[in-house]
């Protein structure tokens, strides 16, 4: 059998710079399994990609619809951004009974969504990121911040999680205001943020989009000097856009550490892409998990293998790192148990999402510097 898997990521749109590394991560896992010849009596795996645009929910559903209806895929790696993921899950994947594993959708809303057991993610919920961010901000001795978020599921979810957690710790959020992506001018938004004041500005936005615009306007008018960046902003684009202007700003994004990650990075280098790109490892893990679950279920029918994802992701069983997928298939084919670890130390909790580790970063001399993991 030739098993087709759909990859639905935002190849255009506000995070287009992140998407290619994610796609290659996922395809690497598929190749690895395909070449082993051990999946379901020597089935091969082919990737079919679709553009989810990240922000346009209607376009994303249409893409996933096409992947399922015309391409007949057996599962979807995606979506990329939370809003789009929710839409395609509820309208297409559920209606057709297809499994989706997202590498990067982080909205808390996805935690308790009714998914008929079809949805998993290898990224942690922003409920957790909000806590981590609040912790980091507070540890740096900042007690009052203004928050601006990109006006969508991700932005609002994370901003709210942060505000709640920050408030519990005794910090104060002077204003929690949305900005829309895709505008030319954010001086009005920044004027409002400046009027409210605060020691730092938390920018829950997208780096290729409004997020950078807000930072630019805030720097120009002298409204803020220190910024806090969560995952949507931590990208190389920040360095090129602002350089030393934002020295002293800091942030965090989900990223595992340890052996699995190192292996993945070197594998990626061999394959010719940058494995340290945000959510690339998560994408590798998502594809691997889906295929291992098929092996475990002995079927590529989503209705069957969906119940086996948690089995392969968590213990008991032998720990599997990147590059060991053939080994995992052997174990499974022999009827054994595996505990997939992958590039990001996968441990699925609750209804199938990553527990999550985060790395803390900081800007020094115009460069992103990793200062630790939590």
């Amino acid at each position, binding site marked *: 059998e030739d098993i087709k898997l759909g990859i639905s990521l935002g190849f255009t749109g506000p995070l287009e710079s992140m998407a290619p590394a994610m796609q290659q991560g996922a395809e690497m896992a598929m190749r690895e399994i395909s070449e082993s010849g051990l999946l379901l009596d020597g089935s091969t795996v082919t990737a079919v990609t679709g553009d989810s645009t990240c922000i346009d929910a209607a376009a994303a559903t249409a893409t996933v619809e096409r992947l399922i209806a015309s391409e007949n895929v057996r599962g979807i790696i995606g979506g990329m951004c939370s809003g789009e993921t929710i839409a395609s899950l509820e309208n297409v994947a559920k209606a057709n009974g297809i499994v989706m594993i997202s590498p990067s959708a982080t909205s808390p809303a996805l935690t308790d969504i009714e998914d008929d057991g079809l949805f998993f993610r290898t990224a942690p919920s922003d409920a957790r990121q909000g806590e981590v961010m609040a912790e980091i901000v507070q540890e740096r001795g900042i007690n009052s911040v203004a928050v601006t978020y990109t006006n969508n599921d991700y932005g609002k979810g994370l901003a709210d999680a942060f505000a709640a957690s920050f408030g519990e710790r005794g910090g104060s959020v002077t*204003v929690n205001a949305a900005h829309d992506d895709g505008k*030319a001018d954010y001086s*009005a938004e920044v*004027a*409002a943020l400046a*009027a*409210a004041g605060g020691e730092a500005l938390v920018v829950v936005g997208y780096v*290729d989009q409004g997020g950078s615009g807000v930072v630019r306007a805030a720097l*120009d008018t002298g409204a803020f000097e220190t910024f806090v960046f969560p995952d949507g902003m931590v990208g190389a684009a920040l360095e090129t856009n602002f350089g030393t202007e934002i020295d002293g700003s800091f942030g965090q994004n989900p990223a595992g550490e340890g052996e699995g990650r190192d292996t993945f990075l070197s594998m990626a280098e061999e394959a010719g892409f940058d494995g340290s790109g945000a959510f690339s490892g998560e994408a590798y893990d998502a594809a691997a998990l889906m295929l291992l679950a098929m092996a475990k279920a002995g079927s590529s029918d989503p209705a069957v293998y969906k119940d086996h994802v948690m089995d392969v992701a968590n213990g008991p069983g032998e720990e599997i790192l990147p590059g060991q997928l053939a080994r995992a298939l052997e174990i499974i084919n022999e009827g054994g148990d595996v505990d997939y670890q992958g590039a990001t130390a996968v441990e699925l909790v609750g209804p199938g999402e990553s527990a999550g580790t985060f790395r803390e970063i900081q800007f020094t001399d115009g460069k992103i510097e990793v200062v630790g993991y939590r």
Partner: protein
Amino acid sequence: MDILNGLVVFLNFVFIPAAAYGAQLALGALGVTLIYGILRFSNFAHGDTMAFGTAIVILLTWGLQALGISIQPLPTALLALVPAIALTALLVLATDRLVYRFYRRQKAAPIILVMASVGVMFVMNGLTRLLIGVNEQRFDDGARFIIDVRTFREMTGLTEGLALRSTQGLTVILAFITMIALFWFLNRTRSGKAMRAYSDNEDLALLSGIDPERVVRLTWIIAAGLMVMAGTLYGLDKAFRPFNYFQILLPIFAAAIVGGLGNPMGAIAGGFLVAFSEVAVTYPWVRVVGYVAPWYDPGPGNLMQLLGTEYKFAVSFVILIVVLLFRPTGLFRGKSV
């Protein structure tokens, strides 16, 4: 001191941005109004042509930069402006030749020209994206500030800072020069008067020996100049992304109509009116009030903002309706009655 601080906050967050924005709108509205007055239709392709012209400016700027040519501290884009205007003028003249002239010749109802301009809008929209893509481009390479926050604070010792970006200064100055030149041209020169005559009465202009095609060509060239100028200044000051140029079409039309369509004076007044009210209505006045009237406590969380920033552009529309209710022909009497 406090009053001064209040004034600085006001200047920094309200006056300067609004003045720059107003100048950009005014230039755009001048173009719209010119085409409306003389060619008799609202050009829906205006925004996208602005984007196209700006894209050319950007490409030329990159070229110049690659050659190492610059006019520091002014942005290189200014150098690129002249050839870009020429190229854009060629493009709009070609468009006129291919599209509009046919209908003019047929004496088709103006609404057909509007429809055709929608078609041109689509094409221009695609062309711009073909040329430069959909992404944001920054091409401002001159000195960033005439005065920045830190210097200002050090100079004056005030707590509040004031930033005046060079692009903002440039926008206002260039816009004013352009407007004065245009007025002089329309009211004093033979060609300008011929344009006004054609606008008033096409046939009679012809019977007076005015070559209508020359007037049309002149109009497109001037309009192209205004478009590229407005688009470049907007892009320098904010950021260039093709879609944004479609979006400012609404405030530009609003400005032109509020001022009185077909009336250049009105376009300018309209541009500034729209810009200042947009900014003022969505600005949280709490800081200014805090300085000017320290005894007044609006209460925590009250930013004294009339309308959320997300409704910023709704303001231009509301102003439009209100003005039209009281002055049905716009602030200055347009051609519309």
